[in-house]
Structures are given as C-alpha cells and as structure tokens.
C-alpha cells in the first residue's frame, strides 16, 4: 500500500545534476589545459588570465547550482534519495577544487613559466597530457556510470600519483639539475591534487559514501 506513496522517480532532475557535474569536469579540463599551458610556455599567462578566472567562476557557479538542486531533489524525494544527494554534494566539491589548484598553478606561471631546458619539462608535458586525457575520460566514465571502467581509471590514477611522488623525492635531493625546483615541486603537487580530486569523483561510482574523500589516503590498504 505505502509503495503507492513512494515518488515515481523522474530521471530529469538527477540527469540535470549529473550533466552539471560533467560540465564542471569539462570546464575543469579547460582551466587545467590553460594553466598548464601558461606554466609550460604554451600560452602567454597575461593573455589567458581573464579566460582562466572566468572559467573558475563558472565552475563555482555550477557547484552552487548542483548544491541547490540536490537540496530540492532531497526535499521532494525524501530519504530514498539522500545518499545520491550527499554523493553529489561531495563530488562537486572535488570538481571545484580542481579549478582552485589550476589557479595555483597559474599563479606560479604568472611569476615565471618553466624553462624548456628544465630536466622535468618533458615529464611535466607528458603528465599534463595524461591528466587532460584523464579529465576527458572521467566525463565519459561518470556519464556511463560503469564500475569496471571506474576501477581501471582509479588504478591508472594511482600509478600517476606514484610517479609524481617519485619525482618530488628526486627534486628534494641534490642532483636533479632543475633551476626552478620549487616551482616544479609545486607543479607536481598540484598535478597530484588534481588527479586525486578526479579519483575521488570517479571513486563515487564504486566506494561507499563514507569512504569518499579518503580514496587516495586509503590506497595503501586497498586491493
């Protein structure tokens, strides 16, 4: 009898929120490429400044929009939709943080882009391309909600984070040969954070709600 009172779920509200998360990731890719290009000399920091900050603003607005919609969704559908709304609240924060780290990277670029002669230049270019591809792939996986693809994505992200850590360890030593080691360490650090936030978003497809955000910290213990 009481199943009659259960709201007939309309996919529209949820689809709209998911589409906004995808928009955030798409904007995230744009701001990441822009900030990386500024740091790695592919674009003049002054020229892209406006676009970069406007993109960040759009990401923030999308986050707020999803939060509002999630609250409305929870209010209308009640407790049955509570987990979904909480997951959305959490992952839009991750998507928003990607924009913040890209701004941090841009701040370094605005002071001094990395010289092409730096021994880590090629590696950073390679990682920039990988993360940019990861952002694109994250949109596809999030749209498909496929668990097997999410797991493969998470493994790849883990490996990339290990590489950043290894490079940072190298940079903390004496014989790295980089004249801009502080900037390079920060760049690896921001790349790692961008990757970690992406992994958090995709981990929402496979991990329980309470383990969100702790995904990268727990990787030593998970199989």
């Amino acid at each position, binding site marked *: 009898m009481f199943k*009659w*009172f*259960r*709201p*007939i*779920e*309309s996919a*529209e*509200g949820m689809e*709209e929120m998911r589409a906004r998360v995808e928009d955030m990731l798409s904007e995230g890719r744009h701001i990441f490429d822009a900030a990386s290009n500024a740091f790695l000399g592919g674009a003049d920091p002054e020229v892209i400044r406006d676009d970069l900050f406007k993109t960040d603003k759009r990401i923030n607005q999308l986050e707020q929009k999803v*939060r*509002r*919609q999630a*609250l*409305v*969704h*929870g*209010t*209308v*559908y009640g407790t049955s939709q509570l987990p979904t709304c909480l997951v959305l609240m959490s992952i839009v924060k991750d998507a928003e943080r990607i924009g913040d780290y890209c701004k941090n990277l841009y701040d370094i670029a605005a002071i001094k882009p990395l010289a092409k002669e730096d021994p880590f230049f090629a590696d950073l270019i390679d990682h920039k391309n990988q993360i940019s591809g990861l952002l694109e792939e994250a949109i596809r996986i999030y749209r498909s909600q496929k668990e097997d693809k999410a797991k493969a994505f998470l493994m790849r992200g883990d490996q990339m984070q290990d590489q950043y850590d290894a490079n940072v360890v190298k940079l903390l030593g004496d014989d790295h040969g980089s004249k801009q080691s502080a900037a390079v360490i920060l760049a690896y650090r921001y790349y790692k954070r961008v990757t970690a936030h992406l992994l958090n978003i995709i981990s929402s497809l496979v991990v329980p709600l309470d383990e969100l955000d702790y995904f990268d910290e727990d990787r030593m213990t998970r199989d």
Partner: protein
Amino acid sequence: MGPTAQQRLVRVAAVIGFLIAFLVGVKLLGASFKMVGKDTAKNLFDGLTNPFAGLAVGILATVLVQSSSVTTAVVVGLVGDGQISVGHAVPVIMGANIGTSVTNTLVSLGHITRSAEFRRAFAGATMHDFFNLITVIVLLPIELATGFLQKSATALTTMFAGSSGVTYKSPIKEFIGSIAKWFIKLVEGVGLEGWWAAAVALAIGLALIVVSLIFITKIMRSLLAGRLEQSLNRVLGRSGIIGMGVGIVITVAVQSSSVTTSLLIPLIGAGILSLEVAFPITLGANIGTTVTALLAAMAADKTSGLTIALVHLLFNITGILLVYPFPPLRRIPIRLAEGLGSMAVRNRLLVLAYILTVFVVVPLLGVLIFRG
C-alpha cells in the same frame, strides 16, 4: 507500456476513485444532518452565528485535522445542504486559512537545533501565519460590515450556476448522490435509526473526506515529484508572479497548501530560498487550496455550496491584491516573521508559546467566549 507508465496509470485511476469517495463524503455529511431533523441540526450549529466563534472553530478544526481542505470541504457540505448559511460560514473559512499555516510552522521545528537555519525556517513558516492573520484582521470586519465577499460570490454563483441557494442537477451530482444513498441504506439496513444512523453516516462521511484527501495528496505528490522538483528549481532565485503561479499549480495538483508551504521550509532553512522569493509561492498556495472547496461544491445539493467555495477563493485573491502589489505592505508579514524568527532563536520557549497561543489558546477562548 513501461512499469513507470503503468504505475502512473494505476495511481491516476486511484486518484479518480478517491475523488469520487471525497465527493460522496461531502454528500453524506449533509445527508447525515438531514437524518436528525432540521431543528437538531440548527441547534448544533447555532454557536456559529457569532462570527468570532466561527473564526475560532475554523482555526481549531483545521489545526486538529492539519488540513484546511478538510475544514472547507465540510463547510461546503454543510452550507450546500442548507445546514448553515453562507454568512455564518465565511468566518469559519477565514479561520481555516489561519489554521492551515500551523503545519509548516511545525515543520520548521525540525531545524530548531541549528540557530541560523531555524531562524530562517521559522521566519519562512510564520510569514504565512502573519499574512493570513493580517488578511483576516483586515477583511473580516469589512466583510461583517458590507458582506462584499458574500455578495460577490453570490453574483458569481448566479452567473455560473443560477440563483444561489436553489437546488441544481448535474450528472456528477446524481452519480455521487446515488452512492451516498447506498451508504445510507446500508446504515439503515443494519438496523440503525434516528440519531445513531445519522452519527454513523456522519462518521463515514467525515472519514471519507479525511482519508480521500490524505490519499489524493500523497498519491498526487508521488505522481508529480518530478514536476515538483522542476518547478522548485525554476523558481529558486526568482520572485513575483512566477512563484505565485508555481504555488497555485503545485497546490491544485496535490490538493494541499500545507504540502506546498512545507516543501519550502527546508529550502528556506538552508538559505537557498529567500523569504522574498518564497512569499509569493505561499500566496499562490492560498489560492490553489481553494480548489478543494470548489470540487466539494460539486456534491452539494444547493448552489450555496458553490457560493461559499467562491467566498474562499475571493477572500484569498482579495487578501493578495490588498498586500502583494504594494512593496511596503508586502514586506510587513516578512519583516514580522523575521523579527519573530530572531526572537525565537534567542528564546526557544517563545516558539512553543507562539504556536499554542495563536493556534490553540486564543481560538479555544474564542469558542468558549463567543459561542455563548
């Protein structure tokens, strides 16, 4: 046909069924009083001849059943069967408007442990109370002095259905009447007579009204969840006529202003819906809720049932026209509610005192004093 489409179809059929049950309930209500004789019924409702007693009864009855729709449907049933006059029923209808706002005020208590949230939520709930109180304070004396609502509603009734007070026929009414007669025969068939038969018929009528409205509201809400979500998303951050339209549409659809106004409270509490934006939605809910009385009038014997239902509609439209077009006046209920919200956060006991005073103590005293 997919499972969702099937679910929808079954639920729509259920709503139609409950709507018929609701109309049968309204019909049975009037019929049950006829069974005890005109004089007995007249004595029962004598207390309502005092408008303040009528107002207090309207508030109390609505607070008790948590639904102005039930109160107004019962009033339409009684007026439509000639048990009480339109004039005496007007204050009861106004009281129902005040009583219905207790539901969202109670909903706002869910936020009581978080100060900032509660201040907003309580203000969001009580701005509806203040608006309804202000419109009654202004319009009841004017109505008592001039009878403008009753006269306007009578004129509209004459225009739509012929002279007010006359008996009219319609196929729906005939159908509803035949089911109600079957119920009465059933009651009399088990050997009940006079008062007992009337009491059982009355109980069945009231039960049908209450249960039908509960089911209609819940099923319609379940059916229209997606639309509700879309409407609320659309209205966030916008104010004015769009909000009022959304309030009307949602309330007509779910047959309950309390559902509409209560949905707003968590959004106001969270701060994503401002009082200024929520205010016209609640006003729209006031208009939307009058549809229940208009539906109930379909079951009434006399056109006076339609007249009192139209009084309900005109009262709410007049209240809005009196306050909403003028920004300084529009801000009065909002500012009063904000003030009360701030006071409530400082002293939580005030919340209890406010609810008990406005919705229980004052109306109870009103009944005791003015009923004579």
